[in-house]
Structure formats: structure tokens, C-alpha cells
């Protein structure tokens, strides 16, 4: 029973782990810059889910005051703090994605490729030209 609970009971966290690994895989192994970026986004989302998952309580409802339940017993509402924190984190993620895509647009305009090996080649060629100046 313990083992079952370890896997099934914590399914959210296992999901988070899977997403983390997926995101890291995308960032490190994929050659296309956009795919790296997608990996990064998945990675960030994983952390967001982690926080949200940690806010959940058994048989609790969303943290909006309900007249029927009252506000005396906090254990009837899930923890809102993580949600507010993650609102901020989502915004940060969006901003980062914005900057990243802007960079990608510049890179594409200059080098006409978003494939990392080709990019490295083009940059190396540029460096050699610079060196001959």
C-alpha cells in the first residue's frame, strides 16, 4: 500500500518531474532554437504546477469566500498564496518568452536559420572574416 501511495498518491508531483525532465531534454538536446524555447516554457510550467499542487488540500474548495462555508476554518479552502505567487511567475514566464522570441526574430533575420549547428557554422565563418581584417 505504501508503494502504491508513493506513486498514485503523489501523481501530481510525478507529473511535475516528467515535465521537468521533458523541458530539460528540450533545452539541452534539441537543435532548433524554437524547440529549446518550448522546452524552457515546459520547464517553467512544471514549476508552476508544482506550487499549485502543493496548495491543494483534501476536500477543500477554491479560495474564494463562500457564504455557505464561512471563513472561520481555513482548512476548507485551498491555500491561495501559491496561486498568487504563480500569477507572478506566469507573468515572468510570459515576459521571458517575449524577450526570447524577440531575440529569435533578430537571429533569424541575421542568419536565416534557427538550427543551432548551422548557426554555429555561420558564426564561425563570421569570426574568421573578422579575424582577417
Amino acid at each position, binding site marked *: 500500500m505504501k508503494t502504491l501511495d508513493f506513486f498514485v498518491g503523489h501523481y501530481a508531483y510525478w507529473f511535475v518531474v516528467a515535465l521537468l525532465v521533458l523541458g530539460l531534454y528540450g*533545452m539541452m538536446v534539441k537543435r532548433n532554437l524554437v524547440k529549446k524555447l518550448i522546452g524552457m516554457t515546459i520547464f517553467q510550467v512544471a514549476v508552476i504546477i508544482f506550487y499549485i499542487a502543493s496548495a491543494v488540500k483534501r476536500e477543500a474548495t477554491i479560495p474564494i469566500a463562500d457564504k455557505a462555508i464561512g471563513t472561520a476554518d481555513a482548512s476548507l479552502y485551498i491555500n491561495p498564496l501559491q496561486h498568487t505567487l504563480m500569477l507572478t511567475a506566469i507573468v515572468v514566464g510570459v515576459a521571458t518568452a517575449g*524577450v526570447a522570441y524577440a531575440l529569435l526574430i533578430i537571429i533569424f533575420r541575421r542568419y536565416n536559420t534557427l538550427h543551432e549547428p548551422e548557426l554555429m557554422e555561420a558564426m564561425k565563418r563570421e569570426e574568421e572574416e573578422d579575424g582577417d581584417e
Partner: protein
Amino acid sequence: MSDAPALPVLILLGTAILAPLVSLLLRRSARALAVAAVAAAASISAVNLVRVLGRGTLHTHMAGWPPPIGIEYVLDPLAAFVAAVINSIVLIVLVHARLSVDAEIPDRSRHVSFYALVLLMLCGFNGIVATGDFFNLYVWLEISSLSLYGLVAAGDRRSPVAAFRYLIMGTIGATFYLLGLGFLFVMTGSLNMADLAAILPHVWREPPVVVGLVLMVAGMSIKMALFPLHGWLPDAYTTAPSSASALIAPTGTKVGAYVLIRLLFFVFGAEFAARTLPVTSVIGWLAAAAVIYGSVMAMAQKELKRMLAFSSVAQVGYIGIGIGLASPLGLIGAVLHVLNHACMKALLFLVAGSFRLKLGHSRIDRFNAAVRRQMPWTTAAFAAGALSMVGVPPLAGFFSKWYLALGAVRASNWIFLAVILVSSLLNAVYFFRVLERLYMGKTGGPGKQEGPAGEAVEDGPRDGEAAASMLVPVLLLAAALLVIGLLNAVVVKQVIMKMIPQGMM
């Protein structure tokens, strides 16, 4: 209760938003506004430092909510010191930046964005240093990081790629930090630094806490460019505009080190971070590797900025060794090196910027004695910076190595001692190589060489010594190195010793 800790942040943030708006009306005002705002921030942080040293820690409760419910801004001696250093250095660099930015970012309309990004970056740094809440720190961290990515991308053709790589690695780092913080939050229920320090002793042994600590340390190590997580640094510093390099090299990694120090020694405490779980040991050994790696790689570089970038990797290693020693002397060495390295690296990158402006390049193999003849003061200042990096007394660089060496001996860590001292020799190799060329390099004939199309290309500087706005900051920093060196005992006794947390004595 005082507003002082939050003031620099607010001023910088406000100006960052105002500057683009105002410059729609008054075309060239962005730079002036930026300098004014940074000057204000620098003065306020200097005043804060004096107040904190005299009367004790300053607190601000945002929106009046007391901690740990509300977000608190805390200025203790360490925070005040780091803030003062960063703001002052950025001010000095901004003065130099005027001509350098004009030259390296030809599109005038982008200058407004540049200065706005600088303000945002500094605002983020001040926020990181002043805040007393870990999540708030994450927000400021990302604000400053995004600005940094932008600043790096403003450079030459290859800079967007370097900026993108920096972005990916930096975001991994910040996300690790956030994940680690999540674990801590789950176990303690608090995000406030002081509160955590009180709660943690009860939950130290729990695996989530350990994992949380490790993740946060890993994340900040990426931001600090601690070997082997430094991969983003060389390209970023090299391809960024020289002014941007001069802005981020002295400050960015230091703020990362500050967070590590705060986390390890003030929140977790040396007792746990060094003795129960050998986190500081690992940092120390990686840092020692960083020192050797950075110095060796620097020796192989042909371009000045890239050489300085690898040198920065090595210098971050010194700070890491100080953290790794987890002792008062180690902390003194690390914090003093924050100050020393900020001055030295700012000086060296500013000189690189001056060279790029006046010579059109900063390639070491194209330096020759003509450079020194046309720019004697700039070259002399570079020599002072180089000697300080090597560790020739009485310049500042010698003394951070002195404290670190003393700390290493006291801990009977002979390998750290050897690393610290041998690296001075490695530094000497690559700096003296540059100095040799600057002072004695043979000029190819009477200054004329052939370009690729056979046209006559002057390989000497184009027109004289750097302008006053570029020369004065450089000379100021060089003089500062001597003054800080001679007066380092004052800095250590009056400022740094007050920072040492109880658990470490």
C-alpha cells in the same frame, strides 16, 4: 521603520518607466535621466550604508503589512554595502558610456532603450539586495536578468545568439531557484528570510529542505557563473557592447554571490550549510576549479574582452572559495573581493571600451606601442588594473587574496592556498602579455598596413587620448584601487566585520 531600503529601487523603477516617455518630448534626455537616477540611487545607498553601520539594520514593511505576512525590505550591513558598491560602479561606468554607446550602437533611436534597460537592471539588482522575501527576490532577479539579456543583445552581430544562450541558461537557473524555494515553502510555510531562519532549524533534516537548498544553490550558481555552470558568460561579455560589459561584469555575478551568502550563512546558517551538509565545501571546490580553469582559458584568448570574461570566471571563483571556507576570514575575503573585483573589472572593461572607440578594435595581437603613445593615461590605468588583478601590493587585489589565503591556512586547506597563490601567477601571464604589447609591441612600419583590398589601413589609434568623459572614470577607478588597497583595514573593520553572522564566529 524607514523608507530608505526601498528608495533606490523605486527611484530607478520610476525613472526606467519615465525615461522613454520623456524622451519622446526631449530627444536626448534618456541618458541624462539615467545618470541622474543612478546618482540619486548611489547617494542614497551611500547614506544608507553609513546609517546602517551606525544605527543598525533598516526595515521597510511594504504597504504596512508586517512580516511574515507582508513583504519586508531589510538593509543590514551586507546588503547596504553591496548596494552601495553596485550603484557607485554603475554611476562611474555610465559616465564613460556616453561616447562608447554612441560608437557601438549606431542607431540613435535605440539608445533610449539601452538606458532604460540599464535602469531596470540596476533596479532589479537593488531589489535583490534590499528585499527580505525570497519570492520577491525571484521577481527582481528576473527583472534584472531580462534587462541583462536585452543589454547583451544590443552588441555586435553575434550578440543575439549569446543573449539567447544566456537567456536559456539564466532561466534554467531562476527556475531551479523557484523550484527550490517551492520545496522550502512547502516545508516551512514562509517566504520571509528572517522567518525562515527561525523555522529552519526545526526542519533541517527533512529531505525536501535539503533538496530545496541544493536547487536554490544550483540556480544561483548558474546566475553567478560558477564553474562549471559558467557557459553563458564568455560569449555574453564578449559580444555585448563594451559599456554593457562594463556594467554587468562588475555587478551581475556579485549579486548572485550575495544571494548565495545570504542563503547559506544568514538563513540556513554556517552550522547547517557547512558542517551538517557540505554544501559550502562543494561550492569551494568548484570555485577552486573555476579559478584555475578561468585563468588557463584567459591565457589562450586573443581578444581583450574575451580574456577579461574568462578572467571574470576565475574571479568569481575567488568569491566562491571565500564562501566555501565558511569562516569569518572567508566571508571577509569574499565580500572584500566583491568590492575589489567590481572596481578592477569595471576599470578593465572600460579601458577595453576606450580601445574599441579609439582603435576600432580590442584584439590583443593587434596592440602595439603606438597605442601607448597615443593613449598613455588609459594604458597606465590598464596597467594599474592589471597589477591589482595579479595581486601586487599595495593595490586592492592583493588584500582580498591575503584574507582568503589566511582563511585557507586557518582551515588547513593547503590546496585552496595553492590555488589562490598560483592563480596570481597565471593572471600575471595573461595580463603581462597584454602590457608587453601595449608598451613594447613593434609597430608594423611607420604605422601603415594593407587592408584586405590593398588599401592603406592605419593600424594605430585614430585621434589621441580618450575624451574626458571616458578618461576620468577610468582614472578614478585606478585611483580607487590604490586607496581601497591602502585603506582595506578600514573597510574590513568598519564595514565587513559587522556583517559576520552570529553562527559563524
